[in-house]
């Protein structure tokens, strides 16, 4: 018998050899008592997101773009619809300048008064307007459209989907058939028809609507009317699976009302899908907006959008190819960054991919 009162170990047996074990020290015992630092699901996911180089890259790009579109109009002394003037006179030589070029009048003015004018970073367009500020405003419009359209989609889709999924049965059947009908409508056709109708109905309206133009409003309306169905289906599917969890039953047995159950128990557990879909909805909305502007159904004339800028640039593409480059590059950057961010979010928020 050994000192541990253990029978002698047969070399072939799987019996545990107590002699090989060490006693836990006091410190190790204490470590067992203390729980690891509290970490929420959201914190975990953000940590994972910031480990993804592509996602970090896209966040940096997006933040840079947003900073530029916020602060550039404060720094650059030109307006998006302002025709360049030198000394109060319209500068006829400032048409179609290349990037960082000055017109003849401007050069003369600078020499005479010994001042420096702000450079035309992207050059000027065929109406002697600063192209950089136009691209910045175009990006503003495109991002705003993408953002607000996604918010509309988010609100309507989540509301509709959660009611349909939670109610289930006949209500669900009925609500989903409506979704199917809307799904089958051709969206481009509806946008074109709506923009025509809205132009007639709204006529000479003023204020923010007039500035955006009826086409823009019809885009919002169409997003509100048509694009929420994808979100609604997705949310409904999620809710159907989440509501089977026992914590939903527990909430019911406590006596919680359906609204509280959806809001407190079901939606937080579908959040990852909702966030991802919204993030991926923004580039698709930007794309739609750019496309519509490109075919001439976008924002009203002096207001630029990336699509309409690209369309105008297309006409002079052989002489001034860089004019197409800038808005196209901007669209690519935004859409790519948002798509990569969406992918990163999906990976980060998917609990099944947990390491």
């Amino acid at each position, binding site marked *: 018998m050994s000192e541990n009162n253990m029978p002698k170990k047969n070399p072939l047996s799987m019996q545990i050899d107590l002699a090989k074990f060490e006693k836990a020290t006091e410190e190790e015992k204490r470590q067992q008592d203390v*729980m*690891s630092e*509290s*970490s*929420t*699901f959201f914190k975990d996911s953000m940590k994972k997101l910031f480990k993804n180089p592509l996602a970090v890259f896209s966040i940096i790009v997006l933040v840079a773009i947003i900073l530029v579109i916020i602060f550039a109009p404060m720094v650059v002394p030109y307006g998006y619809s302002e025709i360049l003037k030198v000394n109060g006179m319209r500068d006829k030589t400032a048409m179609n300048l290349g990037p960082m070029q000055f017109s003849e009048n401007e050069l003369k003015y600078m020499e005479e008064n010994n001042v420096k004018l702000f450079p035309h970073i992207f050059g000027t367009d065929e109406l002697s307007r600063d192209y950089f500020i136009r691209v910045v405003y175009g990006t503003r419009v495109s991002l705003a459209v993408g953002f607000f359209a996604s918010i509309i989609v988010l609100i309507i889709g989540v509301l509709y989907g959660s009611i349909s999924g939670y109610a289930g049965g006949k209500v669900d059947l009925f609500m989903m058939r409506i979704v199917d009908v809307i799904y089958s409508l051709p969206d481009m056709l509806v946008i074109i028809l709506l923009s025509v109708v809205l132009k007639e109905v709204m006529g000479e309206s003023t204020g923010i609507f007039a500035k955006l133009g009826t086409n823009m409003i019809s885009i919002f309306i169409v997003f509100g009317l048509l694009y929420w169905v994808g979100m609604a289906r997705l949310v409904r599917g999620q809710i159907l699976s989440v509501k089977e*969890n*026992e*914590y939903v*039953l*527990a*909430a*019911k*047995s*406590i*006596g*919680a*009302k359906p609204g*509280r159950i959806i809001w*407190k*128990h079901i939606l*937080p*557990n579908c*959040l990852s899908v909702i966030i991802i879909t919204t993030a991926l909805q923004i580039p698709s909305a930007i794309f739609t907006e750019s496309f519509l502007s490109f075919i001439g159904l976008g924002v009203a004339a002096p207001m630029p959008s990336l699509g309409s800028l690209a369309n105008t640039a297309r006409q002079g593409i052989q002489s001034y190819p860089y004019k197409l480059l800038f808005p196209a590059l901007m669209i690519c950057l935004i859409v790519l960054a948002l798509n990569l961010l969406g992918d990163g979010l999906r990976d980060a928020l998917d609990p099944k991919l947990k390491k």
Partner: protein
Amino acid sequence: MSDTKNLVEVRDLKMHFPVKTGWNKTIPLKAVDGVSFDIKPGETLGLVGESGCGKTTVGRTLLRLYTPTSGEFRYNGELVTEKNMPSLRKEMQMVFQDPYSSLNPRMTVEDIIGEPLDVHKLYSSRDERREKILKLMETVGLNAEHATRYAHEFSGGQRQRIGIARALAVDPKFIVCDEPVSALDVSIQAQVVNMFEELQEKLGVAYLFIAHDLLVVHHISDRIAVMYLGKIVEIADADELNENPIHPYTTSLLSAVPIPDPNIARSRKRITLEGEIPSPLHTPSGCAFRTRCPYATEKCAQECPTLQDRGNGHQVACFNR
């Protein structure tokens, strides 16, 4: 038996789920098919039976998580209906089987336990809410520092304690325990079962203790009901049922209970049942158990036996034993 008033009276409770079997055709799935029992205040009724026999459905139907097809449920003499259920939810609570899925992963322990308080508005200030929650956590043996943590940071036993604290939050008089220990390992099972007993002594709650582990049920229950295919086949005091089982299904269940002494275990006769449990969609005519019963006769196929008192409150539904 004492003559105190029954806290819970269930009479001929039926819960049939419609199952679609084709175009425009549904047949009922008889999950619970005529169950009756009483529970006195502070008493524990164990409910045992194999998987799929409708134990859980009984519990959930009592709490109106399902709307029963027919039958009566009286709580404290008051008939429970859809209308007065919201106010009665303060009196009845449930502890769920799976401690992993019964707690919302996006809520802190404080919010989980505090939810019944929120729903029934049982506090006047945030401090009072917090105080109540901490007291509940202490009752079930959780540290106050756990309050801000999320459910996934706890072990199975601790999670079940959180679930119990949530059930106790509204100070209920009747708790349905739906297999509260079957997802836990044995050492933790003992802790949790003992905690249930302590809570009963301290708070005087009545339990409907659903489980499939006869040893656990025998340990905690005052009386035990045995279910088979949606019906109660035998109901008796815990010790009486254990020593003197009458229904052939109960005897076979008891013979399958593991005995910690290998000598006794080897010498006893194991009654194995033939065949599978029939589908609750196509229950056999007459006695539901007759397809597997060694004593089945012609009569069993034609008539359904009802619970008959065999003395001392020992009720059995069988013609032949």
